[in-house]
């Protein structure tokens, strides 16, 4: 069931969504059992920014019907901290590493892309232009021209596959997708979380420290399927589909809608090994499909 994704050979089509699995923390919790039963065919790291970030003030989570809303705010060690402390550990994982980056300007993104381009441990780069918690991310990914300018700026800086992660919080997602492809993106990933909000029942004020958050989980699955389908109509490059995947059947749906790979995110919070289970269920479904 191996899959070729932008020239990277993967043992199955299931990876993780950026920011939904920390392999280093998971290794502390589960020990080497994690590495022996690693659930994903490639590991996508949490967003790296140029400078370290503490993230948003808590509370950061709110449970919604059939899902979760989060306002985490991209906490990370920054580029230098990541290169020094995280990259050596993540490079030792049994699967290819995809690094997700975000900048507050095109120059910042360019700096990050150039820095990771030199690292042989990194198999591909994913541009976060869609995080709804950080203003600039939303602006870049919500507009086709902004997206194209960003991709055109960083495309010449790396020979590694460049994935653009699209935001669903845009008026015309296929138009942004086509602009990213035209500007040189090798692949697209979608959907990121949908912007939402919850009020503290005791005070009537916003519950999340970041005021608004991103909704994920099965609550958004139908939206993800529609967006992947719509984007697949207008681009040729491979698509990483995600949004509320809980089973092999959900993954098969996204592949049917046009995805090459499928990412598992929120379901890993309920079961850390969910990615491996989804991959097995998908393999069984595909094996039983009469061509």
């Amino acid at each position: 069931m191996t899959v070729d994704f932008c020239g990277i050979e993967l043992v199955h089509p299931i990876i993780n969504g950026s920011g939904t699995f920390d392999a280093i923390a998971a290794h502390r919790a589960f020990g080497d059992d994690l590495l022996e039963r690693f659930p994903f065919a490639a590991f996508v790291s949490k967003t790296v920014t140029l400078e370290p970030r503490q993230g948003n003030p808590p509370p950061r989570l709110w449970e919604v019907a059939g899902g979760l809303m989060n306002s985490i705010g991209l906490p990370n060690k920054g580029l230098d901290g990541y290169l020094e402390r995280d990259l050596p550990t993540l490079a030792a994982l049994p699967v290819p590493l995809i690094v997700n980056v975000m900048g507050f300007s095109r120059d910042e993104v360019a700096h990050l892309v150039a820095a990771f381009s030199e690292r042989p441990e990194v198999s591909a780069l994913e541009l976060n232009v869609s995080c709804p918690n950080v203003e600039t991310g939303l602006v870049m990914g919500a507009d086709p021209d902004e997206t194209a300018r960003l991709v055109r700026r960083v495309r010449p800086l790396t020979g590694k596959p460049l994935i653009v992660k699209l935001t669903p919080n845009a008026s015309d997602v296929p138009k942004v997708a086509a602009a990213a492809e035209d500007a040189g993106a090798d692949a697209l990933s979608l959907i990121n979380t949908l912007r939402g909000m919850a009020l503290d029942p005791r005070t009537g004020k916003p519950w999340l420290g970041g005021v608004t958050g991103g909704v994920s989980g099965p609550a958004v699955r139908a939206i993800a399927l529609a967006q992947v389908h719509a984007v697949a109509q207008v681009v040729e490059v491979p698509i990483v589909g995600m949004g509320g995947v809980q089973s092999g059947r959900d993954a098969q749906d996204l592949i049917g809608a046009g995805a090459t790979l499928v990412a598992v995110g929120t379901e890993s919070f309920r079961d850390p090994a969910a990615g491996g289970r989804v991959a097995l269920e998908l393999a069984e479904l595909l094996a039983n499909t009469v061509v």
Partner: protein
Amino acid sequence: MTRVTAPFGRRTATVTARDEHGAYVALRCHDPGGPTPRAGQFYMLASAERWGGGDGERPFLPRAFSVLRARAGELQFLIEDVGPGTNRLSELGPGDGLAIVGPLGNGFAAPRENRLPLLVGGGVGIAPLVIWQDELGGEATALLGFRDQPHALGAALLTAATVATDDGSVGHHGLVTELLEDELDARGDEVEVYACGPPLMLEAVRELCSRHQVPAQLALESGMACGFGACFGCVVPTIDGYVRLCVDGPVLDAAKLDTALVAGAGH
């Protein structure tokens, strides 16, 4: 070593008994696939069947619970029905499946400098103190605070506990931290405090221990989605910045905290 690593992934344990302790339910379950946890470690719990469809179409995520008691192949958890997750869990009975991930996080560490352990618990937060008293040999002094008599029945889970209730129906009429202050005044230089309970209680414990220069280990609570460091949702502020309670806690040294008031906890 205050951490035992968990088998990777979720597994199903089988509920073998449901014991009522006043306002609380202790679920006993058979977990042949798991290791014996350390006191203060926790598990993410969900019912194997019908998890969801409660109030507000919740629960969706598993819920974090400190282990109440453990021995080879058997785990116990203390549940108070306060929301859609705990409501569903408190319905479970013998033969029902309990989906678990764990043990997770760091447990309590042994007292420093030959100090005597002094356990301080509030409400359902007494749970990790029960297993810790077991590990310490059943002799540790315990001060426990509860809302009222039905909740105070939980005190029977510990040996020789001194109880305070908000309404005065059992034991001292007032706060458990008033009992703690008397203890610290009398023998603060001999004890190390281990505390778990609601945020206001923990903050009062932290402040008292800081003022009396008594070392303290606090088992905190924060809303958690995953329990293994993936979601970054459960952070609490420390003197070193935010830390994830699930992988760097839930037991934290009180000296690392400027406050034990965790935003969103107890909701």
